[in-house]
């Protein structure tokens, strides 16, 4: 059966509609992530830093502030041991965060970092961070968790304060599920 003009245009429009649905569900989320990564606007930090930076710039002093937040119903106690430090760019600095699992069950947590202002994210290098791994705390257990970082001397001159915030997520169930499937 030859198709007439109406069927042709209908077919085309149905394809466009399906295409837009696919675009929204399957393309927009990854595009969004890629866009944020390329422009650095999500404030997401990179993984472990293994390079080296130029010499310490003692002329400049940057204020680094730490924020620790629990996501949703996460019951842990979670806070930085120092709320603020002053560092020179290029200088290696170590700080610690405190966490305690006050519940009566063993739990696994994951901390997600974020940097403000956004344009500082790519100049904040972490050589060691508890956020690279999941944190396991038994019922009632507590721990100090370490972070070692360097601020890149290339940091834009307009930035004088960097806020590093960690949000702690309860991933106990997800971890158990993953273990269950691999077993």
């Amino acid at each position: 059966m030859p198709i007439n003009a109406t069927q042709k245009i209908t077919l085309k429009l149905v394809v466009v509609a399906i295409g837009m649905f696919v675009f929204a569900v399957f393309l927009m989320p990854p595009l969004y992530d890629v866009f944020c990564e390329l422009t650095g606007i999500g404030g997401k930090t990179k993984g472990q830093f293994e390079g080296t930076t130029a010499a310490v710039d003692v002329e400049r002093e940057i204020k680094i502030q730490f924020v620790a937040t629990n996501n949703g119903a996460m019951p842990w106690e979670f806070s930085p041991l120092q709320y603020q430090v002053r560092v020179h760019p290029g200088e290696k600095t170590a700080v610690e965060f405190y966490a305690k699992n006050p519940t009566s069950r063993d739990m696994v947590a994951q901390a997600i970092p974020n940097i403000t202002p956004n344009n500082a994210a790519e100049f904040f290098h972490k050589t060691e961070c508890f956020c690279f791994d999941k944190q396991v705390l038994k019922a009632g257990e507590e721990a100090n968790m370490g972070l070692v970082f360097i601020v890149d001397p290339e940091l834009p001159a307009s930035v004088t304060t960097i806020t590093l915030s960690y949000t702690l997520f309860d991933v106990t169930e997800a971890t158990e599920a993953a273990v269950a499937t691999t077993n």
Partner: protein
Amino acid sequence: MAHGPAKGIGRWLFATNHKDIGTMYLWFSFAMFLLGGTFAMIIRAELFAPGMQLVKPEFFNQMTTMHGLVMVFGAIMPSFVGLANWMIPLQIGAPDMALPRMNNLSFWILPFGFALLASTLFMEGGAPNFGWTFYAPLSTTYAPDTVNFFIFGVHIIGASSIMGSINIIATVLNLRAPGMTMMKLPLFVWTWLITAFLLVAVMPVLAGVVTMMLMDINFGTSFFDAAGGGDPVLFQHIFWFFGHPEVYIIILPAFGVVSAIIPTFSRKPLFGYSSMVYATSAIAFLSFIVWAHHMFTTGMPIAGELYFMYATMLIAVPTGVKVFNWITTMFRGSLSFETPMLFAIAFVILFTFGGFTGLMLAVAPADIQYHDSYFVVGHFHYVMVAGAVFSMTAGIYYWLPKWCGKMYDETMGKLQFWIAFIGFNIAFIPQHFLGLAGMPRRYADYALQFSDWNMVSSIGAFMYGAAQLLFLYNVIRTIVAGEPTSEEKTWEGAEGLEWTLPTPAPFHTFSTPPEVK
């Protein structure tokens, strides 16, 4: 050979005639308009005075959400689809819509979509309470269980809209009478054609975003959940990628109606026809690249704020072209002020006002103050109510005599106009003051200093509500007992194919296509 409509309920259930389907769309949307209006009256009654009087805050949230959803998707959009069904075939000289059976389907699934949505009011947990923009995580992690009904309702409504649009595009592109070239199409047809393309492009995005919510809620994905690596801001981007074109979907057909009415009662052809077509296309294009002006407070980088600010302001240019064209059409015309013209002129004035407040909101640094305040509520009611709803009302008074062969009562029509016009302004001008003074939107209560203007606003809202009951009365009264008229041209200044047909328009029209010179 020419046969009339089937008898009884079957005429409506199995309707494929564009006029019958148009009529059903119009009545359905009016029922939704009254339902959404009832919700609005509950909101304004609660806000009449500070403190909690009538409803619980939880229920208040359900009212604001349902009001927005029902008005946007149930009242405004289907009413213009109804008008398109009635008028597009008549205006392009086609015997019917291109896909009559799909037309039946796209209408009849609508009541089911809204039944799903409205049934949540009677369920445990209550109706959706997260605002008509249903931002995640309010609509996912913190949503009532009934959110699944909302999601399926939106799917159905979206499917209906997409089918309706495909039908309109196919009709306009394929069924024009010989000689009816694209640049001779009446503007209502043009604006609907462009709207239909917008709908086909963005309704699937709406369906997509609710599907992602469905997955997050029920199937453990984390599109919008930061705990699983997702991002709630992504929700806003996808929603507004649909949402901003959506506001033009609502207003473009309204532009078309006004572009038909103003020349008729100015007894002059429309000024700048082709610039109207280009301006409409430009608005449609721009509507895709300005969505984040709804998100100035989400922490966008400065470059983004600037881009979305200027791009948004750019829309005022083609919009201004349209406004100037309407005014120029009236300039030195031989004007008369029948009810449709009154509504059309009010549309031009009040819509322009809403455009100006839109420009204020587009100023990113200022919007950080205005955002989510009553100022925004004032803005969008000027463009959506005084824009879309006024234009719809004008269109109904304008074409009603052609549809049913009866004349409405001019005095009653004018009475309705003045009550609606005055009530509307009393209701919504104060909301701008309230917003600028810092009253946030979507709360069941407010600080004492906002009392006076809220009371004024509520009084205006009740007036505007009463005008709608009068409208219903006027329409029924016309159909049942209006003065019969059989003049082909109800309005002596009217131009266009629909006015060459007998009055009332017979069940089948243009079975042989007219010749357009």
